[in-house]
């Protein structure tokens, strides 16, 4: 993200209305390799190709704020790998991590990972360090410390059904697991911030929040997210594209000031739910409209969304969720144009 884009982002978060409304997208491995024309495994294993794909995106769409920007990641494998999760990387499919906890009795014995040395994290960090000069010579900076959220990681380590039923049957065990994961994530976020002083934002992704009721969220979500976002940074960014009506009212209390959601809840309703204290990054349907809609459908949906807004402050136009696979250059260009024309 350039200095100018960062300033724009901060202005929007601070409530300044920008005309036209800025456009932003979360981009990562589900979209970039395919769009750039390389195999997913090449994107993960070649820092040169990874960098070129990212640079092409920022050069082709200079007006778009890409978040978090130059995201070094290995898909869903990144954080669970430090706990010893087996990771599977099919040649041209998305990688995934296998669970490591087969019974809640194993939670106490789970070894606390060291982000400096364990799993794929040293590779994530070193990739960024190696390409940092090239990122900066392109006029961009590394702005975000990034991690999957604690509930998301817990569900990878145990299996989501097992984790959610453990929450209900053995709440103490579930909390022990969440405390271990939160300690680990704080270490990981701090390590990223120490390594790159340009970081002034935290980005967490967690869609398991969306499956909980308020009581469960208050016990198993709220305290851990508050702890993780309790850092002295300007942007506190959360992604949850699962249902969000339960958790959205708590986002200001957590400290979140930028939120990327799914496409099922209208932005006007979300503004009310978040007391208009949170900038919303969204939310046209990512797959049915942004990826597979015609230019006309996309333009209409974008226009409808903008015209539906009762208040255009604290909005960054995007899709509901991250950029999905197979979104074409033409559709991104049409989206940007539609935003400008409205």
């Amino acid at each position, binding site marked *: 993200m350039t200095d100018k884009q960062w300033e724009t982002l901060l202005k929007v978060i601070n409530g300044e209305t920008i005309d036209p409304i800025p456009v932003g997208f979360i981009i990562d491995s*589900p979209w970039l390799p395919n769009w750039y024309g390389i195999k997913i495994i090449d994107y993960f294993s070649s820092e040169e190709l990874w960098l070129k794909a990212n640079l092409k995106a920022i050069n082709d769409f200079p007006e778009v704020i890409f978040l978090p920007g130059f995201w070094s990641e290995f898909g869903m494998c990144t954080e669970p790998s430090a706990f010893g999760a087996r990771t599977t990387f*099919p040649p041209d*499919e*998305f990688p*995934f*991590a*296998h*669970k490591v906890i087969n019974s809640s009795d194993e939670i106490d014995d789970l070894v606390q990972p060291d982000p400096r040395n364990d799993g794929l994290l040293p590779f994530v960090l070193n990739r960024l360090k190696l390409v940092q000069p090239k990122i900066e010579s392109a006029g961009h900076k590394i702005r975000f410390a990034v991690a999957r959220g604690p509930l998301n990681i817990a569900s*990878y380590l145990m*299996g*989501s*059904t097992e984790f*959610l*039923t453990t*929450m*209900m*049957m*053995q709440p103490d065990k579930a909390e022990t697991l969440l405390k271990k994961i939160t300690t680990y994530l704080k270490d990981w976020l701090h390590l990223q911030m120490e390594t790159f002083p340009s970081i002034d934002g935290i980005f967490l992704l967690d*869609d398991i929040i969306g*499956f*909980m*009721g308020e009581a*469960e969220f208050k016990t198993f979500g709220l305290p851990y997210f508050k702890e993780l976002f309790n850092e002295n940074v300007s942007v506190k960014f959360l992604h949850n*594209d*699962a249902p969000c*009506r*339960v958790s959205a009212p708590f986002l200001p209390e957590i400290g979140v000031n930028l939120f990327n959601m*799914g496409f099922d809840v209208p932005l006007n309703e979300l503004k009310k739910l978040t007391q208009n204290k949170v900038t919303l990054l969204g939310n046209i*349907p*990512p*797959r*049915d409209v942004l990826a*597979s809609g015609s230019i006309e459908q996309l333009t209409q949906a974008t226009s409808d969304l903008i015209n539906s807004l009762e208040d255009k402050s604290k909005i960054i136009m995007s899709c509901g*969720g*991250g950029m*999905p*696979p197979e979104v074409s250059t033409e559709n991104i260009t049409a989206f940007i144009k539609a935003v400008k024309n409205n």
Partner: protein
Amino acid sequence: MNEALITQIGICIEKGKVNKASPYPGDMIGQEGSDELTRQALSEGIGPDLILQACNSGMQRIGERFSRNEVFVPELLMAAKSMNAVMAHLKPYFQTGTVKAKGKFVIGTVAGDLHDIGKNLVSMVVEGNGWEVIDLGVDVKTAKFVDSVKANPGCIVGLSALLTTTMANMAKTVQEIKNQFPDTVVIVGGAPLSTKAAEQMKADGYASDPQGAVAFLNKVSRN
């Protein structure tokens, strides 16, 4: 007939009370759950079909509360867990034909996707509705679905995905099943799906929640 006992089994399903040892739900601590009550009902000579009806009523009530956002996935999972405890007792009756299954339902989460919540919920609710469920698990390759259809003629297939990224695998699986077994009915579901997406991948149906899946299956089986 001990109607109070049957009613209580339905309540255990709705509230997710599995057995006496279970600390959930908080207001039923120390009480017997669906496990003990089903054993008692069978020993009293209550027919398995009546127990199954009570379970269906309990599941329907919790399913409706889920649809109204009064309860959420963890509560539904607990209800399904309670239902599983009943089904463990009723399984022999299905095997001997005393209770007839409505049909066979093969379900799995598609290749590359390890999310099991949606798949498990649908699996358990469908089973509770009287279907024989063949759960292939998560990260299920297309060939495994095809083999299962081959081994279970006339089955209906359910494909689940949570990740937008694995929807392509889902489409490939639907296509392959339809290529090899054109008459096989396929229903899809999961967070990134929609009716439109289901139509695009040539699936026969889409359900946004377990109750929707049950309604679809029951409709197909009547036709």
